[in-house]
């Protein structure tokens, strides 16, 4: 966009007398996504160099990090949107465990059709999301604490109920239940010689929906508003409570989607499945340029955050480095990305006109 020349009457604020040339590079560099995009390229180049000969660049290598990234992105994208809206959700790990256990127990122990079990799990996740949102908004407590509570409640209750019904914490046998074959097509197909799992497309669907909500709809505008300053948003008529509750529902529903994919892929469930995802999702969102205090961030950036994570996790395996090191690597990457992002944000807020 260019400087508007002249105006009705005399312009009281000269348009550009103190403005340096703002090049397209600068405009690109102040995007919230930039840190994650650079980070992804950097770690990819790094592992392409040191592990290129050992299969990292092969179809199998590529599909392995893409599927790790996809599983993370399915949860990280809604978490990023929720964080842009100013809240956290630490219960998403337990939601995966609870939903996959609901699916597996209803179908294997009670003989339900798998699709009906999916429906029940989905309704359950919506209820958890509504409860999280309602509790946070009504009590005024930090969502960090409220959802930490939900996390433990769900984990404990899932384990308790599962042991009560099956006597185990790990239930299998999903391949024998009615509806499994069609569910396998939808959630666990692989393409191009069994390499690329369908979850990559599910992740892309979540990314497209998330990016569309944030950039294309009035609701997305409200999310930025309630995260930036809930009072200011309320003053201009944004329904703050409804927006935030819907965001909690979105994270819960996406976690349920991941539970469906994993239950069908592994033909079973474990009560501990999904544990730890809550922090990985926050890492991906923050690497992707989401501000911890809300009001700023990007869905596309979060996708690249998840991608960088997947590349590191699988790249270390291909490089033959002891896998114990991968968490150290993730930590370094997180810190570097946050440093870069805070610099980007500062630059973006510098006066320019």
């Amino acid at each position, binding site marked *: *966009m*260019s*400087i*508007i020349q002249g*105006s*009705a009457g005399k*312009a*009281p*604020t000269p*348009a*550009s007398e103190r403005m340096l040339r*703002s090049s397209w590079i600068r405009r690109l560099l102040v995007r919230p996504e930039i840190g994650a995009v650079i980070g992804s390229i950097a770690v990819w180049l790094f592992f392409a160099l040191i592990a290129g000969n050992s299969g990292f660049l092969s179809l199998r290598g590529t599909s392995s990090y893409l599927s790790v990234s996809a599983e993370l992105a399915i949860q990280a994208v809604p978490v990023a949107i929720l964080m842009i809206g100013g809240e956290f959700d630490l219960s998403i790990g337990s939601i995966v465990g609870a939903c996959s256990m609901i699916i597996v127990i209803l179908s294997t122990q009670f003989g339900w059709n798998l699709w009906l079990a999916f429906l029940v799990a989905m309704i359950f996740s919506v209820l958890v999301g509504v409860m999280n949102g309602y509790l946070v908004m009504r009590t005024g407590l930090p969502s960090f604490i409220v959802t930490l509570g939900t996390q433990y409640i769900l984990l404990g209750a899932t384990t308790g109920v599962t042991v009560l019904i099956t006597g185990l914490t790990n239930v299998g046998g999903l391949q024998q239940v009615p509806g499994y074959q069609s569910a396998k097509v939808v959630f666990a197909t692989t393409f191009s010689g069994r390499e690329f799992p369908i979850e990559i497309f599910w992740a892309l669907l979540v990314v497209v929906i998330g990016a569309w909500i944030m*950039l*294309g*709809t*009035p609701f*997305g*505008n*409200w999310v*930025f*508003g309630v995260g*930036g*300053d809930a*009072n*200011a*948003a309320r*003053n*201009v*008529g*944004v329904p703050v409570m409804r927006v935030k509750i819907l965001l909690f529902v979105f994270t819960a529903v996406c976690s349920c989607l991941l539970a469906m994919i994993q239950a069908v892929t592994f033909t079973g469930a474990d009560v501990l499945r999904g544990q730890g995802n809550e922090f990985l999702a926050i890492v991906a969102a923050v690497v992707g340029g989401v*501000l911890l205090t809300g*009001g*700023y961030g990007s869905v596309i950036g979060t996708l690249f955050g998840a991608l960088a994570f997947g590349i590191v996790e699988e790249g270390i395996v291909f490089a033959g480095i002891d896998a114990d090191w991968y968490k150290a690597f993730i930590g370094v990457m997180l810190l570097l990305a946050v440093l870069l992002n805070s610099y980007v*944000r500062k630059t*973006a*807020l*510098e*006066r*320019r*006109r």
Partner: protein
Amino acid sequence: MSTANPSSTPLLEVQNVSKYFGSIIALKDISMSVYAGEVMCLLGDNGAGKSTLIKILSGVHQPSEGRYLVEGKEVHFKSPRDALNAGIATVYQDLAMIPLMSIARNFFLGSEPTKGWGPFLRFDAAYADRVTRAELARIGIQLRDTTQPVGTLSGGERQSVAIARAVYFGAKVLILDEPTAALGVKEAGVVLRYIAQARARGLGVIFITHNPHHAYPVGDRFTLLNRGRSYGTFAKSEISREEITEMMAGGEDLAELSHELAEFARTDALIADAAQELAKEAEQLQQLEQHHSTDEQ
């Protein structure tokens, strides 16, 4: 007399309004009005009751006593939304804009333009961009890029954008809460100019401030509050800037203050004298020392 025609109906009027919080009298017997095309300044020092009065006018609080009329009809607002729907928009000093959001998105927050239908209903970014650019150009802010964050604007520009937004969305009465308080001289000038423009467009403006130097150039009438009560309303022709300042401070207090200041000045002079003497002594000492050292050589 003021520029407003007193025989017409005021856009907004309160009659003998009082507000109590428990046993505390926040406001007592306040009457004021604003007409279309005038700037009504509400002046008062900190704690005078300005904020309480604004909150009543903008629908946050309900008056304990008295009547509130909009265009001659009595109203009972239950929320800020009610006041907004009646065309009364309040621009708060700090809660007006979201710094990290783009200017166009801020401008339309809560009233987003859309196009398309059903699931393809979408935020009309091009329209938002066009309107924001045009509305800001009207108040003299030339934007290169409406997607830049509001945080890149100066404080005065942010206030101006918030005012432009209220006007664009059909406000008849603008209540401006200390819009110039945190601003530098030039910045305040930008906002004051825009207040005058809003008046020229036929809006009624209630301009709350504690700075007579900002109020006097743009104000048509002045209502002075002090400790929850009103000193009355004065047309510009009836009162000078100095008189406003004096009344705001409370006449006697100010006299006492000038006495105190004179006392400070006197002691200051004494201190200055003493300091001068000390400096002279130090100089002499230095000279002596130099003398001494040259002797040694």
